[in-house]
């Protein structure tokens, strides 16, 4: 009994924070050495099934050492808090570097060779994450076996994080994100472009039936002619205009007599039009509240084809109409797979659709053409590991609620 206590004390006292941080930094340095040795080519994320084996091997190995050596010095230390804190801290240090150094591949220079400009695919990051996962995994095993209900919150948080990190990290090799540029009036297309700009043929064809865009009304503002900037009074909102709209901007009372969302210029002013390049136009009456001077005339927002038109308020100030901003845009797309199955979907930002295991997103359009864009940019995403990531996230959500509910209650050990 006495000797057992003494042994416990020795083990506990043996490796605290200094030793743990020492080990964590050694591992970090090892990672950088490998990266530099390989001239900064980083880590190629493995694809299925090569990303599955490491997970299985790691899991089996961890369970084995846990069962076999759970009282051993090394395993005890690996699942101790000093080890966790040091691993999280050094990992956080790498994330900090990602936060400060722009992550853009250059293929040369010391930032490339050390891996500092592609850290998330670098050896130090991989090895550190691996180390973190081993420590976290052993912690989960120590607390989780045998399972006790009072450890539920702890396990939701720790095991949830472990699953999320493993699935997100290993799954990134199988993640496919393909951009499809679809034009109105063209036939089914299977051409896609990957993130690295390489072309890819999709397992299904897509055809754009219709692209629609909804615009906010334009805003009206007073601008300084020489500086070219908008003038605003303390905290005033730039108003969106409509026909009959009245407001006061700086020193002018403004009244919108006529407003045409899509107009072209004619000799006598502006008339409604459906032609590409037509723009927002408004006929406004203004009155200076100080001098009483009135000015009226057309203002137009301008478009890719036509110049905007301003109204001179005085020698130094102009009244301008801003280009309308998009409120929402959507595409009606027909999809057809290799077996001839078809489906028509409506894609909108924040409202993706599914088709044959792919998720499709509305991402963009020809912003210069605005409402008259015939191009709709769609992204197709396939992420087979997503259910595991979501399982992890769900556990973390549960863990967070548990943490909130019990507060410090869960750490009375």
């Amino acid at each position, binding site marked *: 009994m006495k000797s057992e206590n003494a042994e416990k004390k020795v083990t506990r006292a043996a490796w605290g924070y200094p030793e743990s941080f020492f080990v964590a930094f050694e591992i970090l340095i090892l990672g950088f050495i490998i990266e530099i040795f390989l001239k900064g080519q980083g880590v190629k994320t493995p694809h299925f099934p090569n990303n599955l084996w490491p997970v299985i091997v790691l899991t089996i190995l961890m369970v084995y050492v846990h069962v076999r050596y759970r009282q051993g010095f090394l395993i005890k230390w690996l699942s101790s*808090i*000093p080890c*966790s*804190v040091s691993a*999280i*801290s050094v*990992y*956080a240090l790498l*994330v*900090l570097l*990602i*936060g*400060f*150094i*722009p*992550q853009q591949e250059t293929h040369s220079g010391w930032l490339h060779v050390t891996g500092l400009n592609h850290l*998330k695919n670098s050896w130090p990051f991989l090895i550190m994450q691996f180390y973190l996962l081993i420590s976290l995994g052993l912690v989960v095993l120590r607390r989780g076996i045998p399972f006790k209900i009072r450890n539920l919150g702890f396990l939701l948080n720790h095991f949830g994080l472990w699953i999320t990190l493993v699935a*997100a990290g290993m799954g990134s090799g199988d*993640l496919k*994100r393909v951009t499809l540029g679809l034009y109105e009036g063209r036939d089914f297309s299977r051409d896609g472009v990957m993130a690295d700009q390489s072309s890819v043929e999709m397992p299904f064809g897509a055809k754009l039936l219709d692209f629609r865009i909804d615009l*906010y009304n334009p*805003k009206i503002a007073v601008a300084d002619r020489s500086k070219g900037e*908008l003038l*605003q009074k*303390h*905290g*005033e*909102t*730039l108003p*969106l205009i409509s026909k009959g709209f009245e407001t006061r901007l700086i020193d002018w009372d403004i009244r919108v007599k006529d407003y045409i969302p899509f107009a072209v210029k004619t000799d006598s002013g502006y008339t409604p039009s459906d032609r590409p390049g037509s723009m927002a136009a408004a006929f406004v009456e203004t009155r200076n509240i100080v001098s009483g001077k009135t000015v009226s005339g057309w203002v137009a927002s301008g478009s890719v084809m036509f110049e905007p038109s301003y109204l001179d308020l005085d020698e130094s100030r102009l009244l301008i109409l801003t280009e309308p*901003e*998009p*409120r*929402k*845009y959507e595409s009606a797309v027909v999809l057809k797979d290799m077996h001839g199955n078809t489906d028509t979907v409506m894609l*909108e*930002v*924040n*409202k*993706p659709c599914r088709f044959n295991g792919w*998720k499709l*997103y509305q*991402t963009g359009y020809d912003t210069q053409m605005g409402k008259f864009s015939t191009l709709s940019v769609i*992204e197709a*995403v396939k*992420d087979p590991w*997503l259910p595991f*990531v979501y399982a992890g*996230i769900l556990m*973390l*959500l549960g*863990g*967070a*609620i548990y*943490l*909130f509910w019990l*507060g*410090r209650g869960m*750490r009375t*050990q």
Partner: protein
Amino acid sequence: MNWTNFPFFAATAALLWILGMILLNFPGKRKAFEIAGNVLIAAGLAVLVCFLTLLWINLDRPPLRTLGETRLWYAVFLPLVGIITFLRWGYKWFVTYALLLAILFLSINYLHPETYEKTLMPALQSVWFVPHVIVYIFSYALLAASSLVAVKGLYELYFKELDVNTLHLADNLVYIGFSFLTLGLLFGALWAKEAWGHYWTWDPKETWAFLTWLAYLIYMHFRTFQPKRTKAPLWTLSLAFVVLLICWFGINYLPSAQNSVHVYAQ
């Protein structure tokens, strides 16, 4: 109702809070003063909630887009955290801190109003928008409060004697704040999957949010292992707040963040 009415509402709220603080901190233990003080503080809060509600209706979109708008939410949440903490654990000084900070936020908004726009870009039009941002703001308000407590703790540590209750208050605030921080981060990930096709893209804001999360995680582990050690956790908690601040608005100035999807306010 728009930002031109803000000074009136802000001044009313600040006045009520100042009166409330005076009553609450009045020497001697008088229950009536304490109650009156709390009522005044709650009234100030109600005034601000009124303004926020009317602003929301007027803008036709949640007022959560610009920094100025989020500062307004802090000015609402901080007194709320203060009152709850007071009712739960009875720290008077903490209410005062929270109120002073809220008044500071109101003053910043008065002195530096931004361009307030009605438009909301399609990427932000989502059911996730309000929960994601509100959960984050609430969490930041709590964590900001915990860092104030940490600074107080450090002051006590170096110049007086550390009151064990100071650290306990910090722990309580961190645990609740951290749970909301986790919710905010995960809501963000789930929303990103719907809006941009992937739950994590190492966007600079994501990177810094993750870093903030890790910093508080380190604090919590520190505290669990050797609760008697105080210096390291107190410093960690103070530094964690610096990371949080960079994540919150420092990101607009970082060279690594020029292409961030989170930089909305021009």
